[in-house]
């Protein structure tokens, strides 16, 4: 567990806590965490990091606020939702950012839907309701003169979406890699729209958060963690091969061949309040947030 071992403060680097339990999802977003662990960046900072696999950002956050995790990977939409519910997350590292064609809206091979405008009254699969999927799809709908009231969002796991498209249970599916590649190959699904354009272009996706309490009590540990992740992010950002290599080690589903062909997002090397503010603003605009949140207030440090 995360709350055990208040380790001696008298260790070499003066860290308040040398053992950290962090939650991570088995998706490309968390590549840097694994790279940092594998290449010893954490160790160099005097940290021992235990990466726990979690199924989704929301559960990870519950683990974080409940105390079973010290830190966790999470997407920003969840983070802002949690903050608006009264929780006190602190974003300490940025991990992943969308690129063109990294999150697309897909339709079946012979679908009559040719443009997002045709989606009126249709069903759309997303991996989680009230999250990035609905946010980005809604923004695409908006540019085509529709609102989220014009469609029905259904929650399905990514791997199930191909079957749902094939069965006709949903008319479109919002997907990401490696499922995008697979769904095109397996059932000849067509891209209807890239959802990371206009107001969601280069959209920030995921980062690492801790609780405010943890950040206050362990400033040095957090700083050390940030340094290690930043070093790994630099590698991810500049060396696609490094990412391709690490992916199959922590996701059973992405083998080397798949890793080589999928469209990856980018790995930002700094934590930037202005960029993250776009997420909060879009959420506010779409009514996912009741009041404005200053992204800056959630950031900790500006190293990245």
């Amino acid at each position, binding site marked *: 567990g995360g709350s055990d071992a208040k380790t001696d403060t008298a260790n070499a680097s003066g860290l308040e806590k040398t053992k950290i339990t962090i939650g991570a999802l*088995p998706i490309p977003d968390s590549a840097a965490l694994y790279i940092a662990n594998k290449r010893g960046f954490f160790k160099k900072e005097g940290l021992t990091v235990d990466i726990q696999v979690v199924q989704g950002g929301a559960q990870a956050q519950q683990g974080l606020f409940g105390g079973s995790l010290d830190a966790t990977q999470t997407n920003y939409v969840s983070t802002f939702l949690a903050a608006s519910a009264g929780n006190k997350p602190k974003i300490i590292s940025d991990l992943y950012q969308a690129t063109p064609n990294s999150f697309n809206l897909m339709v079946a091979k012979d679908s009559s839907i040719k443009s997002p405008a045709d989606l009126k009254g249709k069903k759309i699969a997303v991996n989680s309701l009230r999250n990035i999927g609905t946010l980005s799809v809604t923004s695409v709908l908006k540019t085509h003169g529709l609102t989220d009231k014009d469609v029905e969002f259904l929650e399905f796991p990514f791997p199930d979406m191909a079957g749902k498209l094939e069965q006709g249970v949903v008319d479109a599916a919002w997907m990401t890699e490696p499922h995008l590649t697979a769904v095109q190959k397996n059932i000849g699904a067509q891209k209807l729209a890239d959802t990371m354009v206009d107001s969601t272009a280069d959209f920030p996706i995921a980062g690492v958060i801790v609780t405010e309490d943890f950040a206050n009590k362990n400033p040095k540990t957090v700083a050390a963690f940030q340094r290690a992740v930043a070093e790994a992010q630099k590698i991810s950002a500049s060396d696609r091969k490094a990412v391709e290599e690490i992916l199959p080690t922590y996701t059973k589903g992405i083998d080397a061949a798949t890793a080589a062909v999928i469209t990856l997002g980018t790995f930002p090397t700094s934590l930037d309040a202005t960029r993250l503010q776009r997420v909060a603003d879009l959420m506010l605009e779409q009514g996912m947030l009741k009041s404005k949140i200053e992204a800056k207030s959630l950031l900790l440090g500006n190293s990245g």
Partner: protein
Amino acid sequence: MIGRRLLDSKPLCGALGAAGLFCVLEATGRTGLISPIVFPLASTVLGRAVELATDADFLLDVVSTLGAWALGLLLTVVIAVPAGFVLGTLPRAETALRPILEFLRPIPSLALIPLALALFSDKFDMKITLIVYAATWPVLMNTLYGLKDVDPLAKETLRSFGFGPLSVLWRVSLPSTAPFVATGVRLASAIALIVAISVELLAGGSDGIGVFLIEVGGSPDAMVYIIATAIWAGVIGLVSDSLFVLAERRIFRWHTARTEVV
């Protein structure tokens, strides 16, 4: 004649049944009745299941889940059986606690995961707690119904010899309820396995069958993995149940000898 003899063998019959089911599923996939994209072919799944058996990561996960399952089930019995006896024999305790129990009972353990995540800092403790919570009900219910089924004359016999309520409980109610309890434990055993895997899946962690499912969850063919894993879950259930039944046969010979189909 030999055919008849062969049909007396339970493993053989079971294997025949399983083979039949396999053929039906394979046929629905091959004929396109259900597209393999929507639901994978039986042979694909079986192949993956066999592969998993040699996957060291998977085996470690299985061991971890089984550990939690066994501990959870043990605690369940230790808690639920005495609780059942208290509620079943002290009407006052029952009436006082009934509203709360009946309120708690239907709350899905899985719905409690978010709250449990907030309550427990240790995933293993949380897993055990939720297993015990979910597995307790069938054992408790069967214990209560078993107590109602005790022959009153048997109890009176012991009472007439001057034994106190506790002795009657221990020497009459307990043994005669035991077969009911055993059925409850068999039910609980499958539920415990289900909860163990589900908690791992929903709460995450570093090992366990459910964590394995998360790890494969990002894969486009996650469904093949999931169903292959489900097969192993089923096999574990089948094996453990057979062991339970074997034990029951030995312990409750007095019960079956008087009742069983001849």
